[in-house]
């Protein structure tokens, strides 16, 4: 079988894509995707570093329970990337620690 994508699998006729920035880099988002889905599509799997040892983290539970995917969106920290839908022009930044001192 030819390699397929999730979009092929469900025959997605998506609306026009838009862009957001992640740490200053422009990434393309499909309408309806959460911030976590948008970052995954761009090949990004971590967007937070932990308070203690500064370890990278991203999605773990994918359903809003674990809080590992916290990220800064338009200056608001502690947003769960797996729940928050991405919107055109969002400024997404890696959250360091609690996000309050950077």
């Amino acid at each position, binding site marked *: 079988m030819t390699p397929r994508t999730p979009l092929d699998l469900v025959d997605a006729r998506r609306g026009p894509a838009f862009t957001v920035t992640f740490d200053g880099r422009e990434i393309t988002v499909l309408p309806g995707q959460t911030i976590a889905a948008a970052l995954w599509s761009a090949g990004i799997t*971590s967007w937070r570093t932990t308070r203690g040892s500064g370890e990278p983290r991203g999605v773990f539970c994918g359903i809003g329970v674990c809080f590992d995917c916290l990220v800064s969106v338009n200056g608001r920290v502690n947003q769960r990337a797996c729940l928050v839908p991405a919107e055109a022009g969002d400024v997404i930044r890696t959250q360091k620690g609690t996000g309050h001192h950077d």
Partner: protein
Amino acid sequence: MTDRTDGRPHLAVIGAGPAGLTAALAAAARGVRVTLVDSAAQAGGQFYRQTAPGLGARRPQALHHQWRTWERLRDGLAGHVAAGRVTSLTDHHVWFVERQSGTTGGAPASFTVHALLGPEQEEPVTVHADAVLLATGGYEKVLPFPGWTLPGVVTAGGAQAMLKGGLVLPGRTAVVAGTGPLLLPVAVGLASAGAKVAALVESADPRAFVRHARVLAAHPAKLAEGAWYAAELARYRVRTRVRHTVVAAHGTGRLEAVTVAALDGDGRVRPGTERRIPCDTLAVGHGMLPHTDLAEALGCRLDGVDVAVDDEQRTDVPGVWAAGETTGIGGAALAGAEGGIAGVSIAARLNSRIPDRSSYASAAKARAGMREFFAAVDTVCVPPARWAEHVTDDTVVCRCEEVTASAVREAVDELGAGDVRTVKLLTRAGMGWCQGRMCGPAVAGLARCPETPSRRPFARPVPLGVLAREPGEPHDTSPSTTGWDPS
């Protein structure tokens, strides 16, 4: 207080998965006014998690099973919503359900459901009702191993949820591992969406099902489902390794490989069987746990880690019903059967009638059969007995507070902690954002004490501004702190 403007009793259903939806439809069809509250952007729950509408999926069913059942639920909901019998509130995160007992002699209780609106969860909303159905489902349990905090390591259900909801994969090459029936749809889902699934690693020994031959024989549909998955795995050339476990995940800043090893009959790793599998994704799960916070805050009795219910799906708190995985893990079909029974019972009881058992006899029979089937699955699909021995001292156990296995062991062995609560006080394990949902089973296992549901004040972090607000006061629009101390 109780909103009975049209004279019809009002039910609040919390959770719009198969259990909550089936219950809402059954109750609405019997004259109950229903408000269906769910935190997700669309109804469906975990099993029927819908692709975001903006993605325009023409064949969403390619990512689903039992699509017909979903169409029936979806269309039924749309019909009741259009007729004004059901109000569906999405993006509403319920953090607390308050019960006001009847003031005048014998008056029934009434309930206030407290929710926070939107993914940011800061704006408060309340719903008043005469009865409540808790249908909040569950979440995945993952036991720790070295490297499990690396980006690229996700829960099996989480990989599936991100795929169904956002049509994305975390990487190109995945290993699916752990134990339990959820691993099968996840491996097939990832493979069908284009990921290379390098291995399906199941710690259980399927031969143990032989002891349950009678139960299995009574469920030909389940056997057919198993055979279908086996054929799909073969079609995608997914190598299945049973009686194997992931002993470590490796990578710098991101997952690069996992080490998988064979287990002996005692759940020990067989020396010399370790092999390294390169991958950028590990989808791992060791079973599921029910969400019980709302039930506990209402004072409902639990049975182990499940909300205890009677034959009609009633909890022991008058006016509160529970259905689906919150009352025990058993999949979407069982959740639907329980929801249907709850809906029939609620409609009768709210009109001071006793439900006619014959009206839900077939659902009750299906429920009994599926409970028996999943009880058998539960005895076979258990994590390796000695998983804790593979957790190295420097492995982070509590992901939020970065508490290591050595800290937990020290609390038990040197400081004498004998239960999870004491370990938590000594180490902060379980005190972070997730409130111990992720590390609870691991801490209990490492401390060699039973898995108990950890009591949480609220089901969701609540902005202080919401908690401090007097009833009737306009809500604080810029709350920045939460009701507990996550930092």
